[in-house]
């Protein structure tokens, strides 16, 4: 056990109440048309007692635990409450999970991004559970008139051994709720965990497999209208005029108007990125009717002039100033521009030693360049949001990864004080970074305010795919210098993108090579981009790992040995400062991958292997990928994924995330790509935009976690980038050809 103080930063959750008052369950009752069965109702307590903002205990010993963060498929709705339940010391079967309201005074970081929900939530969640347990013990001790030190708990039962008395949490919940918050509480030690580390199935599982309305797009309220948008058909264009005469006369249509989403909003945050600020809106009775009317609108568009946009960064302090150039861009030009940029000296991001001399004196120089296209997030649930705005308050509800930020933007735009705006989080049909940018929340609010009616804004798939905050298009040129003994003596990366660079100057192999140079460049574009699952890493990891594979081959070394040699150097005698990785944990996953996959043992005929390892978003992942060729096509037979993310809270879900990230990495590297022509993506739905499908999925993924008691880190992003490198390296082995440009497979055959 460890004793900790209950004051935790500026956190005040222990005194503040998350809910209106104690008493009955409050929640999204209007959304809770998922009728609880009579069996469930019978199990419900007569009264709930709120112990702190995170949890309440019923008079029958059930606990309701709040899940603070947005659920986008990363399974925090199960894993975060598990951490609370662990320290509360209650049987998981006696836990009901509820999505918490947005209240960052209590729940701090209610954001789904950076794979940080568990990492940041860990201490606070444990404290919430431990504090409640301490108060329950205190209440029992008072009731029994014994010292608290003699009182123990086990899965919801409080005992006093000396007098052989026991009682359930429910019996003292009322008293516990009235006690002062203890100054110090005990936390369990790693080996005392009973819930953490045990596979626990998704708390929404039954609702999901029976089709209950959990998602934003499923929301309904009496009198609600459906709203859809018509946005410019290409980047570089804005609305000139439109004729809605025909559309207005169509059945079910209530109104057609334009909105300027961020009009009068002063301090836009980085999450207010908005490709098309002026939109035509169609409001009507049903989705199909609105869809038809939308098609009947005749709009004229015109080019816009260059302009400058300012956003505040994540902290709210720094200003990011962005140049938005005029014009209708083409991917073909982008590739030419990127190639030209990669041949020019660029801004130096890091320099160690004397790279110029190292390359001048090298026995061998290897130089390669790599590209990747724009990607669309394509969450399965298209963008949507519910809004009910009246003159004095706004209720906004739906899927968004940045609820706190969007609540602020909406309040400002709607001219309401923040406390008059309530933003509820629904389950989200995928995030991948797309829902960090919540312009659709503001749009929904403005539309509801204008129509004086509750509305649900829905994007069609075409709207969703063409109204992007895409993964940028990237380029990286690498050079490696080998001496006559095949030692890596110089390393040079020059990376950039449209409109953002993927470079991480301080990541491996920085720190492991004496002479190192990293350069970065970017070229402005009016195509809006944003974070996409493992931003920047989702390109640079794969290409770096493919390049190192070629360097190892040129040096005549086994690719794993070659990397491990570099990690040895970084461990014992690192070059430079601020290297952004722990070489021990990095080498650790690679060594375990070698062991688990039987790397180097006589490989099976016709099976081609590639290796990679990467560190991002605080976790380490190594992959070994086995490929076979069937009917002239590469087939991924098996992937080994070795992960070090510290303590694994919920193995069954963690494995799911690793499998999903692996499939996604292979999918995007093989098939993903959004191509622009005259400012418009030529793919606007799944007939042309390729996502990986059942048949193309790896046949097997074997996941291993490094067993340690390090502070837990995330899994939403880390398993995604590295597999692209292992894939490229296996593809080379299988086909004899290196693949430098993603997607590796478009419609062409890969075998040369």
């Amino acid at each position, binding site marked *: 056990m460890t004793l900790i103080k209950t004051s935790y930063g500026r956190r005040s959750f222990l005194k503040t109440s998350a809910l209106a008052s104690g008493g009955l369950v409050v929640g999204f009752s209007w959304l809770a048309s998922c009728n609880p069965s009579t069996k469930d109702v019978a199990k419900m307590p007569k009264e709930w007692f709120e112990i702190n903002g995170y949890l309440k205990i019923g008079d029958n010993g059930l606990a309701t635990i709040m899940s603070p963060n947005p659920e986008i498929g990363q399974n925090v709705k199960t894993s975060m409450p598990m951490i609370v339940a662990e320290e509360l010391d209650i049987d998981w079967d006696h836990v009901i999970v509820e999505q918490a309201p947005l209240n960052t005074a209590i729940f701090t970081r209610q954001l789904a991004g950076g794979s940080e929900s568990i990492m940041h939530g860990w201490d606070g969640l444990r404290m919430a559970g431990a504090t409640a347990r301490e108060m329950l013990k205190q209440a029992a001790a008072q009731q029994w008139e014994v010292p608290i030190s003699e009182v123990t708990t086990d899965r919801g039962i409080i005992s006093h051994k000396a007098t052989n008395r026991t009682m359930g949490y429910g019996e003292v919940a009322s008293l516990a709720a009235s006690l002062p918050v203890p100054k110090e509480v005990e936390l369990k030690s790693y080996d005392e965990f009973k819930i953490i580390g045990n596979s626990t199935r998704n708390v929404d599982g039954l609702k999901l497999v029976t*089709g209950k*309305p959990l998602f934003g797009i499923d929301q309904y309220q009496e009198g609600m209208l459906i709203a859809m948008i018509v946005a410019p058909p290409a980047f570089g264009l804005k609305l000139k005029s439109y004729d809605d005469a025909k559309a207005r006369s169509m059945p079910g249509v209530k109104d057609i108007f334009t909105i300027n989403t961020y009009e009068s909003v002063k301090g836009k945050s980085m999450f207010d990125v908005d490709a098309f600020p002026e939109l035509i809106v169609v409001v009507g009775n049903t989705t199909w009717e609105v869809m038809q009317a939308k098609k009947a609108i005749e709009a004229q568009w015109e080019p816009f002039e260059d302009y400058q946009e300012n956003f505040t960064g994540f902290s709210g302090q720094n200003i990011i100033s962005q140049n938005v150039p005029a014009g209708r861009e083409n991917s073909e030009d982008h590739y030419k521009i990127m190639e030209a940029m990669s041949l020019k000296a660029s801004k130096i991001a890091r320099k160690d030693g004397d790279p110029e001399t190292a390359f001048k004196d090298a026995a061998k120089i290897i130089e390669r360049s790599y590209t990747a296209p724009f990607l669309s997030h394509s969450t399965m649930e298209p963008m949507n949001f519910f809004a009910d705005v009246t003159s004095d308050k706004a209720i906004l509800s739906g899927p968004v990864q940045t609820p706190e930020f969007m609540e602020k933007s909406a309040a400002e735009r709607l001219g309401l004080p923040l406390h008059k705006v309530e933003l509820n989080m629904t389950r989200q049909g995928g995030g991948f970074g797309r829902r960090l940018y919540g312009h659709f929340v503001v749009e929904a609010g403005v539309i509801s305010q204008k129509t004086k009616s509750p509305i649900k804004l829905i994007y069609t798939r075409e709207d969703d795919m063409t109204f992007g905050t895409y993964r940028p298009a990237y380029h990286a040129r690498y050079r490696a210098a080998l001496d006559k003994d095949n030692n890596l003596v110089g390393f040079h990366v020059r990376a950039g993108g449209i409109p953002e660079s993927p470079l991480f100057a301080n990541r491996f192999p920085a720190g492991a090579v004496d002479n190192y140079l990293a350069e970065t460049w970017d070229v402005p574009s009016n195509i809006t981009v944003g974070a996409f699952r493992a931003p920047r890493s989702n390109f640079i990891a794969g290409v770096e790992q493919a390049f190192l594979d070629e360097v190892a081959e040129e040096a005549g070394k086994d690719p794993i040995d070659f990397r491990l040699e570099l990690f040895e150097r970084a461990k014992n005698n690192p070059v430079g400062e601020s290297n952004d990785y722990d070489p021990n944990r990095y080498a650790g996953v690679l060594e375990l991958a070698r062991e688990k996959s039987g790397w180097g043992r006589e490989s099976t005929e016709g099976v081609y292997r590639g290796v990679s390892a990467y560190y991002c978003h605080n976790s380490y992942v190594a992959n070994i990928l086995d490929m076979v060729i069937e009917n002239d096509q590469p087939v991924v037979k098996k992937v080994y994924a070795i992960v070090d993310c510290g303590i694994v809270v919920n193995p069954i879900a963690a494995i799911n995330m690793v499998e*999903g990230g692996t499939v996604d990495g292979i999918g995007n590297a093989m098939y993903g790509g959004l191509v622009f022509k005259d400012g418009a993506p030529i793919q606007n739905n*799944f007939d042309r935009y390729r996502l990986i499908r059942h048949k193309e*999925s790896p046949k097997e993924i074997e996941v291993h976690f490094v067993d340690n008691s390090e502070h837990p880190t995330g899994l939403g992003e880390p398993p995604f980038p590295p597999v692209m490198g292992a894939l490229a390296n296996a593809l080379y082995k299988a086909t004899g050809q290196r693949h430098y440009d993603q997607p590796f497979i478009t419609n062409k055959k890969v075998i040369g």
Partner: protein
Amino acid sequence: MATFNLTINGESRQVDVDPSTPMLWVLRDHFKLVGTKFGCGIAQCGACTIHISDVAVRSCQLPVSAVGEQEITTIEGLSENGDHPVQKAWLEQDVPQCGYCQAGQIMSASALLKANPNPSDEEIDQAMDGNICRCGTYLRIKKAIKTASSTI
């Protein structure tokens, strides 16, 4: 506008809509059966899969006027209490991530098993290829289909 008499999950229902309205929107907007999901609208993702006389059909491309007297089953009607073997297998394998595609996956899988209780890997791939899972739960889906297959 026209009136249509439909049999949905064993109940007769009536709706007054334009004949071109896809079943997807009839279910979601008119009957509030929102378990059937909208993903693409062009029969490319499978999120909207329902059963028409036990066969998996993409409801986004099925006009209400084409249904006639055939029985419609949606995810809500697949079983009374979520205890269809496929649903049970989905829970056992803890398949969903975001979960948005899963109703469609389950409807495709249950139609497959109805027609072919012991599908091979290739037959599963074939039958499920029209159902995209953006989260990449394909391996668990396949495992769950096999689990369900062994209990049918």
